[in-house]
């Protein structure tokens, strides 16, 4: 009975495929703008903070015993003496168009996705990222499949058998999964299955070398990572499902004479998926930027491990590169989730 702005009895708007497309375009544009902003902000943070902290970036690039002339040459070559906005622009240009470092006769060309060079190894960053990215992606996606299957199944079953032994058991296991740290469950599983029983090899084998080897090496990391997330997803699924089962439209579905399994599958599950998807987008995005604990525990040469080394060595360009990849992954994952959202929930298309 209120006349507030929340609920204007407006004219009906059709929410067909066109609406989904328009919605998608809007989100894409927003994501692109976001990406540009992120690149600029992240670069500024990484190259301004050392300055404030009194750390000479050029010095850390050359090494502690470098002579002042070499340091100056690096400073000129990397453009570290330039004003901040010039540096930001050069970095930004480097990512999309490549960039040329020049100091006198010393000219280095760094082609298109140029993220600069490592302070320590003087390797270009981009190849490091592309080497390590598939490892992390494989870890995250594989684990996600596992945790979705087990988390959703456990959550739905617990909701439907609320208060039963199964429900209590599953929720205790889930609580354990949420509370136990990865390095504990990871090391425990390594100790049992790899060192103890010798069932699985704890060695990472690249996918292109051997498919079965890759699977064998990834099983423990997958299970360990999935255990944590499956536990979280089971709890959320259970709570959401219980809430949805109390909705009026579920009662309507039963009043139509639908069989209970259809009520659950077609009516309750679809609504339950909405919050799960949101979580999945965030979690996957974050994990693709590197599952530091899991990768370290299982010695996987992924982004997480790279960033850990870089932090130890104060290798700013690597940290910067991984941070940008993480941001990009989160952006893409959220974009995908938004689109799925619009497909699932017709009301989203309008706003």
């Amino acid at each position, binding site marked *: 009975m209120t006349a507030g702005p929340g609920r204007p*009895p407006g004219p*009906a*708007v*059709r*929410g*067909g495929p066109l609406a989904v497309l328009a919605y998608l375009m809007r989100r894409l544009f927003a994501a692109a703008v976001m990406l540009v902003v992120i690149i600029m902000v992240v670069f500024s943070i990484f190259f301004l903070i050392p300055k404030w902290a009194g750390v000479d970036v050029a010095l850390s690039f050359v090494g502690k015993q470098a002579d002042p002339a070499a340091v100056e040459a690096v400073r000129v070559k990397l453009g570290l003496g330039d004003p901040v906005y010039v540096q930001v622009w050069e970095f930004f240009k480097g990512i999309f168009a490549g960039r040329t470092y020049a100091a006198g006769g010393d000219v280095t060309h760094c082609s298109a996705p140029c993220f600069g060079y490592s302070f320590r190894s003087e390797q270009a960053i981009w190849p490091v990222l592309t080497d390590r990215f598939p490892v992390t992606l494989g870890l995250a996606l594989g684990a996600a499949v596992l945790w979705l299957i087990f988390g959703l199944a456990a959550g739905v079953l617990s*909701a*439907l*058998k*609320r*208060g*039963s032994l199964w429900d209590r058991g599953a929720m205790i296991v889930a609580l354990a999964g949420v509370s136990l740290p990865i390095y504990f469950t990871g090391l425990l599983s390594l100790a049992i299955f790899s060192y103890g029983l010798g069932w699985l090899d704890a060695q990472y084998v690249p996918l292109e070398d051997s498919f079965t080897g890759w699977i064998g090496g990834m099983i423990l990391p997958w299970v360990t990572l999935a255990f944590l997330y499956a536990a979280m997803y089971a709890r959320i699924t259970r709570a959401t499902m219980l809430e949805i*089962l109390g*909705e*009026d*439209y*579920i*009662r*309507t*579905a*039963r*009043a*139509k*004479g*639908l*069989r*209970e399994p259809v*009520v659950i599958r077609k*009516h309750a599950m*679809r*609504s339950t998926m909405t919050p799960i998807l949101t979580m999945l987008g965030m979690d996957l995005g974050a994990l693709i930027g590197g599952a530091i604990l899991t990768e370290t525990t299982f010695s996987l040469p992924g982004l997480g491990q790279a960033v850990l080394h870089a932090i130890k060595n104060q290798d700013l360009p690597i940290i910067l590169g991984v941070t940008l990849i993480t941001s990009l992954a989160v952006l893409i994952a959220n974009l995908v989730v938004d689109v799925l959202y619009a497909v*699932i*929930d*017709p*009301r989203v298309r309008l706003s």
Partner: protein
Amino acid sequence: MTELSKTQAAVGEPTATSPAPTAFLEVRDLKVHFPTDDGLVKSVDGLSFQLERGKTLGIVGESGSGKSVTSLGIMGLHTAGQYGKRKAQISGEIWLDGTELLSADPDHVRKLRGREMAMIFQDPLSALHPYYTIGQQIVEAYRIHHDVDKKTARRRAVEMLDRVGIPQPDKRVDNYPHEFSGGMRQRAMIAMSLVNNPELLIADEPTTALDVTVQAQILDLIRDLQKEFGSAVIVITHDLGVVAELADDILVMYGGRCVERGPAEKVFYEPRHPYTWGLLGSMPRLDRDQQERLIPVKGSPPSLINVPSGCAFNPRCPYADVPKDDVTRTVRPELAEVGSRHWAACHMTKEQRERIWTEEIAPKL
């Protein structure tokens, strides 16, 4: 109505062991109790009534009187999809067209739902699934009970939307519930519930969430459709205006029990229960000259866990001391006939109530 009197005359207190009834719908001594941490909630505690095809029964009561629980009980929705340990405890008999539902196979009852008996809910926005189009939801309702392809079912859906007065039904069928206005949604809900030509339609507060002018449209629609389809209708509402518009018979509920039941005219013009008087006195009326003052019922509705002993209404009844020996506080009154097809559950004698109504209550209304 006269052809019904034979069956209904026998209904004061049907015994639980009596054979299958001849009425289309007969509820006998229905009890729906819910166990909770605080105790047993006796939402419905011994309710009996009958309903014939083509007739409308209005169930009136305030929140917590058990009227909605009754309707869900008839539909079998207290047992369907109840997960967990605390299930509703249901006893009594519900006879629908010769079948007793409470003892029947649950899957058989499921097949009756939506086809033999259908329901309209109070808030059509929350009662329709937000992720499916109106058409998809009606098509689903139809195809559960009819083995037809989607095209045929869709045609049927459009036809039903047209019948309930939705403009451009062939376009609107593809809209989502949030693209409809409140009144249109309730029309769509009605279309969905009538898609299988059910013989029993239960409308639970069908117009409470709607504006007055839209309410008038929907009441009009329900009345027309009932004439057309000849279904038996149960209207559940707290609004005496709505029951007066629709109902042939009225059942007044209080604290999970029926306190008065009879033809609409009797209940409105010669009510024989103090709670019914209270309801009538509480209501400002547009069709009368301005009342000086409303005559409210004092106090609040009873707890359903600790229902007052004796007559559940006794703590709020201004006449609780009229019967002798404190009988209102110790003995629960049973429904007794007070006129032709008219029952009330009160300890006062018929004469006392007649006198109080005509001398004290009616003149003030």
